[in-house]
């Protein structure tokens, strides 16, 4: 049934294409007759169909009955296809020309499609190329700037050499030693000015009982206080330890000096008060340590 209907539909289109040429009425009439016959067949089939009862499906029997029905219908269609012989359409010029035109228009349409897709692909590729080129340019710029930076930083590298470091340290040490000498000299001069060394023969100035006290030099005081004795005669070691104890020593010195200042002022006051010499005992004990 559907086969004949398809044929009918196809032939329905054909009259439209051949109506352009009015000459070949015969072909038209023939086709018309065929169409009429087909329509009659269809009406007969339709009548037969209307006599067939309806059948509805439930969920349970649906699958099986449908499968059976589908199998039957497929075999019927198969037999129909096998029995059918292809009909040759009358090869008149108009039909051929119209068929040819149809095919050419189809081809043109397909080619246009292909062209448009290829063109759009081209455009996309061009866009991609531009984007990639832009990216490349940016990367090259970055590279150049990085190279320039690298060169700049190279110049700033100072080669590290051990010998230079050592010589720098030596000069520093020498400078510090010089400074220390200068400090000691100035301190010696200061002490000479303000606290002259007592002569070992001028004992008369001392009315202290403790004249038998040893007058020891400051150097010896420091030696004793630092616990250094004759057993370390290594001048380098002495010098080193002296250098390292400088801050505390300075503090000690300052303390000493302040004490001495106090005591000598007091002693001078006492001397002025008792010019005739006195039996005052001057407690210079703490000084004479």
């Amino acid at each position, binding site marked *: *049934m*559907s*086969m004949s*209907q*398809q*044929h009918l*539909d*196809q032939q*329905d289109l054909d009259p439209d294409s051949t109506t352009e040429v009015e000459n070949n009425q015969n072909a038209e009439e023939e086709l018309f007759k065929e169409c009429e016959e087909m329509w009659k067949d*269809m*009406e007969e089939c*339709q009548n037969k*169909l*209307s006599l067939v009862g*309806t*059948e*509805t*499906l*439930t*969920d349970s029997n*649906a*699958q099986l*009955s*449908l*499968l059976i*029905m*589908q199998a039957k*219908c*497929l075999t019927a*269609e198969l037999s129909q296809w096998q029995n059918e012989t292809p009909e040759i359409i009358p090869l008149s010029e108009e039909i051929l020309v119209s068929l040819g035109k149809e095919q050419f228009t189809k081809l043109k349409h397909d080619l246009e499609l292909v062209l448009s897709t290829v063109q759009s692909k081209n455009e996309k590729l061009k866009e991609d190329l531009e984007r990639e080129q832009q990216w490349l340019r940016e990367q090259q710029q970055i590279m150049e700037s990085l190279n320039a930076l690298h060169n700049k930083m190279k110049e700033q590298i100072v080669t590290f050499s051990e010998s230079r470091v050592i010589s720098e340290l030596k000069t520093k040490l020498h400078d510090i030693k010089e400074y220390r000498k200068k400090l000691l000299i100035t301190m010696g001069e200061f002490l000479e000015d303000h606290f002259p060394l007592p002569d070992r023969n001028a004992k008369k100035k001392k009315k202290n009982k403790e004249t038998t006290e040893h007058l020891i030099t400051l150097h010896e005081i420091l030696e004793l206080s630092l616990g250094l004795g004759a057993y370390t005669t290594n001048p380098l070691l002495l010098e080193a330890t002296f250098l390292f104890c400088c801050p505390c020593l300075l503090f000690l010195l300052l303390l000493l000096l302040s004490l001495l200042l106090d005591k000598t002022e007091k002693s001078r006051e006492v001397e002025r008060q008792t010019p005739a010499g006195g039996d005052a005992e001057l407690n210079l004990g703490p000084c004479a340590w």
Partner: protein
Amino acid sequence: MSVLRPLDQLPSLNTAAVLLVGAEDALLQQLAESMIKEDCPSELKVHLANSLPLPSSGNRPRIDLIVFVINLHSKYSLQNVEKSLHHVDATFFLGKVVFLTTGAGREHHCSVHLSTVERLARTYRSPLLFCDLEKEAFRAAMVQRLVRLLLVCAGHVPGVSALNLLSLLCSSDSPTPEDL
């Protein structure tokens, strides 16, 4: 007649009619509008229905294809379709019925399980199509498919019958352990 039959009338020349059955009017309306806009060599007629049986107002052309629209977000649409299926003649299921499912994309809104719909399609031996009908692009693609299906079912494509197409569409089905 309360049961919808295929081939109940002689066809009108060069026309194909499709019936969209579904519970949600908005979806059906959108689908119908998109189908009419589609250009095809034959004249298209789109009929909408919420459920079967159709009201027996005459002058209806013969229906070439029925599309059952199921929305996975509502159980009611599935029940509606199941009820309507009982009013369809068995011979319709030889390739002239299609189940169209929408809303599979948003899983947390789905109240109907996919397997339920799949089982329904398998029971009635009909193709199951998925589409998100609310998105313009997907709907356009689905409409093209449906129009091609309709043309084949109406016999406008020479050499291909609805049953042929059905066996092509459903050839990937293999019987599940439940069915055996």
